[in-house]
């Protein structure tokens, strides 16, 4: 017996993945509630004012605003400025308590999509780079905001920098800080930032200190080669060990130029730390409430990383975006759609098969095959 009532699905998180999941669920005919703890939709890219988005270098508004508008104009129930404070999951019903300024509220769902994303790693923890001590040492997200505000200036004196450097892999691929994984987007975004600088101000010198450049797929020629060949962005092979004060308010990036086999202590006006990604606090908290397993890097463990990437270890909970690991915006959007169809079909099938009592995990696997 197929039940005719629409699947009731909760999407937690209003970033790229959550937005795309909500739209697809709504279009498929589900009853969708989208809960977001901030007062605006768009997630971290909007909240932190990212500038242009790779690979087409479109402003973040052009990429995300159409999704936001679709959700806003649809009948998706939007709960902004609201958090999920309690969850009870049993017998195929998820009882959820929402908390906001307006008080508490409860609702029941058939399935949940977790799209609670990531945060940028805190560079204060890498004390030898002096973030928070030297005003001209800024991080990745600070620089994005600077670019999107069109306000390129040294924080120390408000003047235009003549030379900017980037340090890749800060808080990524570093046993010293317990982060063993690659952030996947840092190289691309740093190169993109240097390209933005060079396009507007060709007179500014830009240097990227790298160990490996990981601009996989089309980012190779669209970003790395373009930056190097057309925009004269320079690449120095060596990882900066420390940053110290130089003459006349400059900063000195202390590295070994591994190609020269020599110490290099070159002055800069600004240094940008390309910080890595870690699971957001929301991701960690929600995973706990939902009883999800985490994987060894602190992200949500997908049921099968290879074949069931948007399923979780709990059968009626699905996951999309950076909650399962570092990812670019287009990938998060794709996963939102994937999680939507998986959740929708799960509810339909479970209603149809409730009587048979088949294991849903087996079912999900069979479905994937």
């Amino acid at each position, binding site marked *: 017996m197929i039940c005719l009532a629409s699947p009731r699905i909760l999407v937690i998180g209003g970033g790229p993945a959550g937005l795309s999941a909500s739209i697809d669920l709504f279009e498929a005919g589900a009853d969708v509630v989208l809960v977001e703890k901030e007062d605006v939709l768009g997630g971290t890219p909007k909240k932190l004012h990212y500038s242009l988005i790779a690979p087409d270098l479109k402003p973040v508004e052009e990429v995300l605003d159409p999704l936001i508008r679709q959700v806003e104009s649809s009948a998706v129930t939007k709960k902004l400025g609201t958090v999920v404070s309690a969850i009870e999951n049993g017998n195929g019903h998820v009882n959820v308590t929402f908390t906001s300024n307006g008080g508490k509220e409860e609702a029941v769902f058939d399935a949940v999509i977790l799209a609670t994303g990531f945060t940028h790693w805190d560079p204060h923890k890498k004390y030898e780079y002096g973030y928070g001590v030297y005003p001209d040492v800024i991080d990745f997200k600070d620089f994005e905001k600077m670019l999107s505000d069109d306000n390129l200036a040294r924080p120390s004196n408000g003047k235009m920098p003549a030379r900017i450097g980037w340090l890749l*892999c800060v808080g990524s691929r570093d046993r010293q800080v317990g982060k063993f994984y690659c952030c996947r987007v840092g190289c691309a975004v740093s190169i993109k930032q240097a390209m933005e600088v060079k396009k507007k101000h060709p007179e500014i010198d830009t240097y990227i200190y790298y160990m490996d450049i990981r601009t996989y797929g089309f980012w190779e020629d669209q970003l790395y080669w373009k930056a190097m060949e057309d925009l004269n962005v320079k690449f120095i092979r*060596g990882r900066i*060990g420390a940053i110290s004060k130089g003459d006349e308010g400059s900063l000195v990036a*202390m590295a*070994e130029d*591994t190609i020269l*086999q020599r*110490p290099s202590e070159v002055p800069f006006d600004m240094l940008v730390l390309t910080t890595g990604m870690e699971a957001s606090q929301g991701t960690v908290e929600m995973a706990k409430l939902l009883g999800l397993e985490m994987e060894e890097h602190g992200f949500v463990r997908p049921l099968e990383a290879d074949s069931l990437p948007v399923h979780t270890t709990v059968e009626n909970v699905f996951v999309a975006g950076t909650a399962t690991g570092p990812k670019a915006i287009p990938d998060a959007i794709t996963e939102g759609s994937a999680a939507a169809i998986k959740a929708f079909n799960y509810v339909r099938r479970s209603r149809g098969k409730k009587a048979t009592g088949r294991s849903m995990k087996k079912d999900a696997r069979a479905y994937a095959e």
Partner: protein
Amino acid sequence: MPIHEKHLIEKQKIIQKDSAELEGRDVSGQWNIFIQQRILSQYHPSMADEIASTPDGRTINRCWQCGTCTSGCCMHTDFGLREFNPRYFIYLAKIGDEEELKKYKDVIWRCLACNKCVERCPKDVRVEEVIHAIDGYMRKKGWMDDTPASRWDDEYVGNVLKTGILDEIMLLRNYIRDEEMKEFNAGYMMRMGMNMLKTGRLRTGPIRHRTKGWKKVRKVAEEILEKDGYELQ
């Protein structure tokens, strides 16, 4: 033909002949200088394997050549000994380039054991230990003799093994007696010694302190050292 950038070529690679003949014709003056090729023609993985099997060398295969260690290395930067490049030593050991590594036999032992590299290495290579292991490997192969650093190590371990507590005065005395001080910056060492005296970090006086029950502990310590491949004097 003159070699314009002669300083870029290692001296031992230049072969100069007084006279040269080519197909019966005397070409000396024109073709009497040869440069040996510098092509790397073989890898020797056994070198890294052997180093990795020692307690000090166990983290060598973690290195991905980022240069963070060298960028902050006291010997490399503060003391300005450019040839002392821990990243490069590790690379040479990993590819097994004996010829190149041997060029650094007067340099590689000069690590100060300040451990700045260990603190910073993103892959958690125990750089200081690994350099020590490469140094040890080179001595074991007979590529270099005992060095002031290795004699210091022996002196140090022997000293501690005696009573279980380091006797700095004895250590320095024996070491100075061996006339090793001149290899180091003697003035600097003396100043450091004086400062240690002033701050009470150097034990003085006739009584040799001793760890309680040291005899038993010593046996265990020696067993472990031997198991770790340390040759006790």
